[in-house]
């Protein structure tokens, strides 16, 4: 586990905690949003909030692809899985997410529908190759880290001449989501959510690079530090953000130099650009409709687009009224502010997506924090 354990060293973490206390000015507060759900879990798993002074607070962002997928889109996947001729291939994270009318992909599977968990899009393509009499649909979700793999699968299917493979594309974009948070009334006008700076996601940025963050660092005057996912990475990035804020700078800095370059992964970006294009708008759970924030399949590859092949229509759904996922995703509420958190809604019986996903804030609180919060 080289290059993993070294970044989890407890003594260095102790030193970084001292450094954070030394750098944080007692006369001001620091509200730092970790965009990515992977960071949220690292923060809680390693008890980082306990190592921070009271005036440095972590705000949890919407960077959990499972959490931000609207129920309507999941309903469409369930509708697809319900067809006799379809094998639906999905990443494991999506199976237990509650859809409308208490459905889920796991339930569909229990009812005999062919829903298969895949670890990569290659597996979905192989399922299509091996089942020529079935229609195989890849339920593609995720941020930029997961998008190039979808693009590759489409191109692969074209090369192999597979006409029984298609993709239900739900890919979303990180920079648009961050901008939507900064534009939201809660942040801009109401002051309900304070975000002074961002911990940027490192794995998304291996693909897109650090350059796309430069616009809003400048435009909204908020520093961004691209942070690795290990605890020392997170703490070092907190130091870098505090220093920027103290010095009045709003720049994009890269703590994860071992994996991220300014220009990102050119080959992966080209693959995505050839295959997918921006949707004029995409509805996010919690953030609502965000312009140019999602991707769809280009018309040149239209025959691999499941939405066209099966005439899928997005239907309006009503969210569970008690579930506070949308507010949690926006950072307006903490999981513990939700009435059903930890009582009705638990990882075993999740009501909202934030409790299901390994990256959801509610799941992180439940796993690592519920005893601490209870006092």
């Amino acid at each position: 586990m080289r290059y993993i354990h070294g970044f989890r060293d407890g003594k260095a973490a102790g030193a970084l905690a001292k450094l954070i206390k030394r750098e944080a000015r007692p006369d001001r507060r620091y509200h730092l949003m970790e965009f990515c759900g992977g960071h949220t879990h690292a923060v809680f798993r390693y008890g980082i909030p306990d190592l921070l002074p009271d005036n440095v607070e972590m705000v949890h962002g919407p960077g959990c692809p499972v959490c931000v997928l609207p129920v309507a889109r999941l309903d469409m996947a369930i509708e697809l899985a319900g067809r006799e001729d379809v094998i639906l291939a999905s990443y494991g994270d999506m199976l237990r997410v509650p859809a409308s009318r208490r459905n889920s992909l796991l339930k569909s599977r229990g009812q005999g529908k062919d829903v298969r968990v895949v670890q990569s899009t290659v597996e979905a393509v192989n399922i299509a190759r091996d089942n020529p009499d079935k229609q195989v649909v890849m339920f593609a979700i995720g941020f930029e880290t997961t998008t190039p793999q979808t693009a590759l699968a489409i191109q692969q299917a074209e090369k192999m001449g597979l006409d029984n493979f298609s993709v239900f594309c739900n890919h979303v974009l990180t920079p648009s989501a961050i901008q939507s948070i900064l534009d939201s009334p809660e942040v801009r006008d109401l002051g309900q959510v304070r975000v002074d700076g961002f911990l940027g996601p490192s794995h998304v940025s291996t693909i897109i690079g650090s350059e796309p963050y430069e616009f809003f660092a400048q435009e909204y005057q908020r520093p961004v530090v691209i942070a690795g996912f290990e605890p020392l990475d997170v703490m070092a990035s907190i130091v870098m953000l505090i220093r920027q804020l103290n010095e009045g700078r709003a720049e994009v800095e890269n703590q994860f130099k071992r994996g991220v370059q300014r220009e990102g992964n050119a080959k992966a970006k080209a693959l995505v650009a050839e295959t997918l294009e921006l949707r004029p708008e995409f509805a996010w759970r919690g953030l609502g409709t965000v312009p140019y924030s999602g991707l769809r399949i280009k018309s040149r590859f239209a025959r691999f687009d499941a939405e066209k092949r099966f005439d899928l229509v997005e239907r309006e759904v009503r969210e569970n009224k008690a579930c506070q996922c949308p507010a949690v995703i926006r950072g307006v509420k903490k999981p513990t502010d939700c009435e059903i958190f930890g009582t009705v809604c638990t990882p075993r019986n999740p009501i909202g997506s934030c409790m299901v996903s390994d990256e959801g804030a509610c799941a992180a609180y439940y796993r690592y924090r519920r005893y601490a919060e209870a006092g």
Partner: protein
Amino acid sequence: MCLAIPAYVEELHDFDQATVEVGGVRSKISLAMIDDVKVGDYVIVHVGYAITKLNVKEAEESLALFRELAETIGASTDALHPRVS
């Protein structure tokens, strides 16, 4: 979902495939998204694909910086207590 881990490249195969190792576990992944990978490199792997090469020089520099911090600031105790669910 976006979590990815550094893996050691053990063997290269045809069609951009490679065998990688993490903590004793071996798996076959695709190198279709990156160029110039050699045996002995580290790559960061996400859903079956290497998404970037790990820059070993930068990684070592970060680790050296953390060691230096631990020595100069002198934290004596282990501050991290990973919680297991």
